[in-house]
C-alpha cells in the first residue's frame, strides 16, 4: 500500500472509561510516594471506516518511520471524538488518527501543529513539542498495557 494515499484511521481508544486519556505522572519527593496514576491510550488501527481494535494490522509507513515529521492538516470532531489528518512533511503522505473522548492526554492539537514520530519496541509514539500525544502499540505494546482498579 502506498503510504502517500493511505487513508488509515487510527482510533486512539481510551483504555478504560474515564481514565484512559489522563496522564498524571507527577514527580514526588517523599518516601514511598507513588506517582499519580498514568493511563495510556491505546491507539487502534482502523482501515476505512471499520475499527480494527487489537487486530494485527500494519501501521502505515508514515506512522512507523522514526524521526518523521508530520503536520496536522485538519481537525474534525466526530461522535466519538476527534479525527486528525496528518501529513508527512517530506512527501505529503497522509494518515489519520482518531482520538476518542476528551482527547489524547488532554492535548489540544490544531491545524499546523508539528508532530514527531518515535518508534520503540512497543509501538509508535507521536509527540508535539516533546509531549506525547498518541501511542500506537504493536503486539508487544498491547501486552504491556492494562489498567484496572480492583478495590473501590
Amino acid at each position, binding site marked *: 500500500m502506498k503510504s502517500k494515499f493511505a487513508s488509515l484511521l487510527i482510533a486512539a481508544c481510551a483504555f478504560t472509561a474515564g481514565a484512559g486519556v489522563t496522564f498524571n505522572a507527577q514527580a514526588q519527593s*517523599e518516601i514511598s510516594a*507513588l506517582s*499519580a*496514576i498514568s493511563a*495510556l491510550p491505546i491507539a487502534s488501527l482502523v482501515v476505512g471506516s471499520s475499527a480494527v481494535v487489537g487486530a494485527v494490522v500494519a501501521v502505515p509507513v508514515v506512522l512507523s518511520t522514526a524521526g518523521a515529521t508530520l503536520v496536522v492538516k485538519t481537525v474534525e470532531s466526530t461522535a466519538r471524538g476527534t479525527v486528525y489528518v496528518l501529513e508527512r512533511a517530506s512527501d505529503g503522505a497522509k494518515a489519520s488518527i482518531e482520538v476518542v473522548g476528551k482527547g489524547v492526554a488532554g492535548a489540544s492539537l490544531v491545524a499546523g501543529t508539528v508532530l514527531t514520530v518515535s518508534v520503540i*519496541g512497543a509501538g509508535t509514539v507521536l509527540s508535539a513539542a516533546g509531549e*506525547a500525544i498518541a501511542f500506537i502499540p504493536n503486539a*508487544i505494546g498491547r501486552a*504491556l498495557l492494562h489498567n484496572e482498579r480492583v478495590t473501590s
Partner: protein
Amino acid sequence: MRRTLSTLLLCAGALLATSAFAGRSCDAEYPPKASTVERGLTLAERTLAALDASGDRVVILARAGQDLSKYGLRYSHLGFAYQQPDGQGGHVWRVMHKLNQCGSADAYVYRQGLGEFFIDDLWRYEATWVSPTPEVQERLLALLQDPKNQARATQLNIKAYSMVSYAWGTKYQQSNQWALETLALAMEPSATSRDRAQAWLKFKGYEPSVLTIRPLTRLGGRATRANVAFDDHPNDKRFSDHIETVTVDSVFDWLQRAQLGKAPVKLAL
C-alpha cells in the same frame, strides 16, 4: 527545652491537622513527555522479556519513582508481577499494586500492565525484582489468580493512606505495606487481619526501615500533603524522629534473609 518544643510542635500539628488536606488535584490533564513514555515503555518491554525468560511465574517487582538516597533507599514502590492466562493458551504479565490517588489521603489496589507500572515519571529507569522460592510463588499465585475469590487478594487493603505509615500500625496503609501484608496472607492463610499478618511478619523476622524525619519535615509534610501523616506512629518513636515504615529495600533484604526469595535482579536502561 526539648519538651517545650515538642509540645509546641504537637499543638501546631493539631492545628494544622484540622486544615483541609485536599491533596494534589487529579483534574489537571497534561501530556507526558515523549521521553517519559518512550523510556518507560522500553523499560517495561525489556522487563517483560526478562521475566518471560526467567521461568518465574510471579515476582516482587519494584521501581525507583523518587530519589530516596537521603534515606539510604534505592527503590520507592513495589507490587506483585505475575502471569495471568490470556485465554488463548498463553499468558500476560500483570502487576497488582496499590496506588495513592493523586496525592489524596486514599489509595486503591490496581491491576496494571508492565507499561503502566513503568510509565510514570521515574527517578531512575531501572527495574528490580525478587524471584520468590517455588513455594512462595505457588502460594502467591493461588492468591493473585484465585478466580473464585478476587477479593481475597485485596482483603487486607484499607483505603486510608499515608506514605510513611507505621509498619506495625493499622490506621493507614501505604503501598509496600499492603503488598507485604498480602504476602503474609498468602503464606499464612490464618493471617486474615492486618494484625495477624503483621504478627506473622514479626515472627518471620521482618524489620522495617527506620527513617530519620525531623519535626519540621514532619509538620511540613503533614500540613501540605493529604497523603502524609505521622499520628499512627508511637509517640516515643515519632518524637525521637524514628519513623518505621515498609520500604522496598527492607522487604528485599528480608526476603533473602528469611530464605523466601533470591537476590534481587536489576535491569536498567
